[in-house]
């Protein structure tokens, strides 16, 4: 299981490995099989877990110094489902942008992860470690979380499948919050079937998450194989506007033609408020983050400043100043500002209003089509360090993914081809509320017809 160590040394997709426990679990699963005990649906499959989903007694740090060696005394709902109930083996936690704040996995206190397709480039983020671990064959199943694209972006950059379910489809209990009205846990896998299987196993109402929804869970693994000849696919013109990489556009258009040839009907639709989504998204996620991250003061858990002089506020401030990374502090500052008296109406309330306009755009669109197809990211994976000093450029990269979170919709990213540098390109399928069945179905049929998901990442430095 850990024979992939050489790859891992290059890629750095994991931040903490669970060797001993994983071997122990594997042995006990072996025993179950020999004794003809009932085995789970994910029997023996290695699971890479994003470092912000709680695993009992295992360091879960959000790749932040402030939570170094935080060991939760409980499992997240999804860990219970996948590991405890269905026999997956947790092999370790994967690298990510600190508190999921980023699109490149460069904002990690453990250093960056590299995309297996070109190790001079980022794997996307924030779930970059999870996507890289799948793309490099180190794990079969991976968990990610998606607040503004954090599953789909690394899936696109690493040539894997990534699914962001409908808000409320999967319990967030045990997911360490970044922006709690947007966060959603989802699978990252090599192929659509595996994501369908994971979703089937971890969906549903959790009494510990009030926002989880008690709605029908489809047999995704069966329904993905349905024909798609009756589907109406919407192509939002705003998602193909200027700023879109030309390789990305042509590869995605080709994939749409493929769907067309499979019998799906395509129509043009519009998401008129797309241009406001990045500003709206960042305002809301930063506001929520400023509150969600307030609890990290070093008093109850996590790391505290060595310098304890002054009063309690001095110690809180010093601890937070020392232990949070730059991007996290930036977002806490801006979020605190946006929620402050006098600015609240101008920023937060206004953002909520725009959020409902964007949501409404999608509601209108889904009156005309079953699913929406578009690129996942405006460009393929960029160079390490390319945008690290230009947060605005980095934020704009979320333009095609974050509207989905604002609306609370499900969306799937699958690889649909490569650019001239052999970098994978992600194809995004956005579904109506709780229609994971529909988007997995389209994704599966496209994947099977393109056949590229079998291609193996080289784990070398790219050419040109």
């Amino acid at each position, binding site marked *: 299981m850990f024979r992939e160590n050489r790859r891992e040394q290059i890629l750095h997709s994991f931040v903490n490995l669970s060797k001993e426990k994983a071997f122990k679990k594997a042995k006990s699963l072996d025993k179950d099989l020999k004794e003809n005990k009932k085995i789970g649906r994910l029997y023996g499959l290695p699971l890479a877990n994003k470092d912000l*989903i709680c695993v009992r007694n295992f360091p879960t740090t959000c790749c932040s110094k402030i939570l170094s060696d935080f060991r939760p005394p409980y499992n997240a709902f999804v860990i219970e489902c996948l590991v405890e109930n269905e026999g997956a083996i947790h092999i370790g936690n994967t690298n990510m942008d600190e508190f999921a704040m980023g699109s490149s996995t460069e904002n990690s206190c453990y250093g960056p992860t590299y995309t297996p397709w070109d190790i001079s480039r980022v794997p996307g983020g924030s779930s970059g470690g999870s996507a890289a671990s799948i793309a490099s064959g180190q794990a079969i199943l991976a968990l990610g979380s998606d607040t503004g694209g954090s599953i789909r972006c690394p899936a696109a950059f690493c040539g894997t499948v990534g699914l962001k379910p409908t808000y409320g489809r999967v319990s967030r*209990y045990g997911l*360490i919050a970044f922006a709690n009205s947007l966060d959603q846990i989802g699978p990252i896998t090599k192929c659509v079937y595996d994501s369908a299987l994971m979703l089937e196993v971890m969906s549903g109402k959790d009494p510990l998450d009030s*926002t989880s929804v008690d709605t029908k869970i489809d047999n995704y693994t069966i329904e993905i194989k349905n024909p798609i000849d009756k589907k109406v696919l919407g192509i939002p013109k705003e998602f193909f506007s200027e700023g879109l990489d030309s390789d990305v556009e042509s590869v995605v258009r080709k994939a749409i033609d493929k769907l067309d040839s499979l019998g799906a009907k395509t129509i043009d639709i519009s998401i008129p408020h797309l241009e406001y989504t990045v500003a709206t998204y960042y305002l809301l996620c930063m*506001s929520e983050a400023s*509150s969600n991250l307030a609890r990290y003061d070093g008093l109850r858990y996590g790391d505290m400043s060595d310098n304890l002089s002054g009063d309690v506020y001095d110690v809180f401030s010093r601890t937070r100043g020392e232990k949070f990374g730059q991007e996290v502090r930036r977002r806490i500052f801006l979020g605190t500002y946006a*929620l402050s008296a006098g600015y609240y109406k101008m920023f937060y309330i206004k953002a909520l209003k725009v959020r409902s306009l964007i949501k409404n755009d999608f509601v209108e669109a889904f009156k005309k089509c079953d699913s929406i197809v578009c690129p996942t990211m405006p460009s393929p994976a960029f160079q390490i360090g390319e945008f690290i000093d230009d947060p605005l450029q980095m934020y704009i990269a979320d333009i095609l993914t974050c509207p989905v979170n604002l609306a609370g919709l499900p969306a799937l990213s699958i690889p649909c081809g490569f650019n001239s540098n052999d970098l994978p390109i992600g194809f995004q399928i956005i579904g109506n509320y709780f229609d994971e069945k529909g988007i997995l179905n389209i994704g599966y049929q496209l994947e099977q017809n393109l056949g590229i998901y079998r291609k193996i990442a080289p784990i070398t430095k790219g050419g040109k």
Partner: protein
Amino acid sequence: MSNESKNVMIGLEVHIQLSKLKTKLFCGCNNDYHGAEPNSHVCPICIGLPGTLPVVNKKAIEFATRLAIALNCDINNHFWFFRKNYFYPDMSKNFQISQYNKSGGKAFADNGKITIKLNSQKKDIILNRIHLEEDPARLVHKGSIATSPYTLVDYNRSGVCLIEIVTEPVISSPEEAREFLKQLKSIVQYLEISNLDLEGSVRVDANISIKGYERSEVKNINSFKEVERALRHEIIRQKNLLKRGRELIQETRHWDDKRRITISMRTKEFEADYRYFPEQDLVPIEIDNNYIQKVKDELPEMPNERSIRLRRDYLLSEFDSDNLVLDKELADFYEDGVNSEASFGPNEYKQYCNWLMNDILRWLNEHDNILKDTKIHPHQIVDLINYVNEGKITTKIAKSIIDDIMKGFSIQEILEMKNKKRIFNEKLLRDLSNEVIEENIKIVKDCRENPKAIEALIGRVMGKTRGQADPHITRTIMNHLLKEKGIISKNFLKTE
């Protein structure tokens, strides 16, 4: 004084722990932490570990509904919780899940009132709103906050459900505030949503101003008893400043219950910005009218209803019944007692009420105790009344044995113990009376002028018998003896 007090405006924010809930507001932890080992009633949710989520306790919604109905509030059918953001070491998440009635938010319920009676005048104390929120942890210091070498945090209290009752600034004196809190305490007790005698179950903030001047907010008043004291202090402080020609500023002050003064914490410029915004880990709460009706139908008898019934069933006066029903335990005790004796009628009902409201209550106050923590049984008061009415003991003796009654001894036992049975022995009483007459020539002479002086002589006999002489017999004997001696001519015998 009454003129002056019209210029005082007081608004109260009363925080009550819903201590009769089994679990905390947002998790399954045992709510009853009083007396428990520190940090023994905690879970990942109420200490705010990363990744945990709150889930609303449905029973808390029911309790709040009960209170809202009892206070005649308008319950909001649809509302959501807010986060109140501020850093403090007693906060597990550095925000408190609360409610907010601005920015599109709504309280649990708006309006409402409590009618108080002061100097036989009625007044409605109008409420602004009531809302739910979670209690922070408890900070423990060694001695005073200022000098303690450390602060300990006990999270047992963290996440306990608080209900906040906010009045309009219509209270015009500390006495009115006291009466308001008395009524509120009574209603909460009848609703069985909280035990306000538990330490820490009540916290009050008071907004106090003199009409035309800035207000101050006094925080940290930790019991109903302290409220009157804190208000009185703060009003005098403000008035003294005005007298000296000083200006009043809007500020937050802290009630120091050890030194019994208020201390300035911060002025308006430094007022905290709580950055309220919706708590999206919880879904909006829907309360429909059917639910409200259902809770209403299941409400227990309330103190005002009970007072009317007691007047009807036991022919008590309005004053007596209003006072009696205030404490549910006292009223239950009363009804248990009077109903246990079939022979009781209106006289005894009244007597029972008097014993309870005067002697028993005084004893409880003096001993800072509550009825249920004593061993007294309702039937003991029945016995007491019967003993007195049958002339077996005097009222004076009856009053003197209250202490033993509160310890659970029967009257029989007490009298045997103290040998306080009455002396009926006429020969003994005649001898003693003769002694008294010989020893008190002056008083005997007075009897010629003032027939009432005989009481003093009877009193002397009582003294010699430590109050055990039967008063009827003693009086008869004393009359007889004085007549024999030609001191008095008429018979002054009268019944007690």
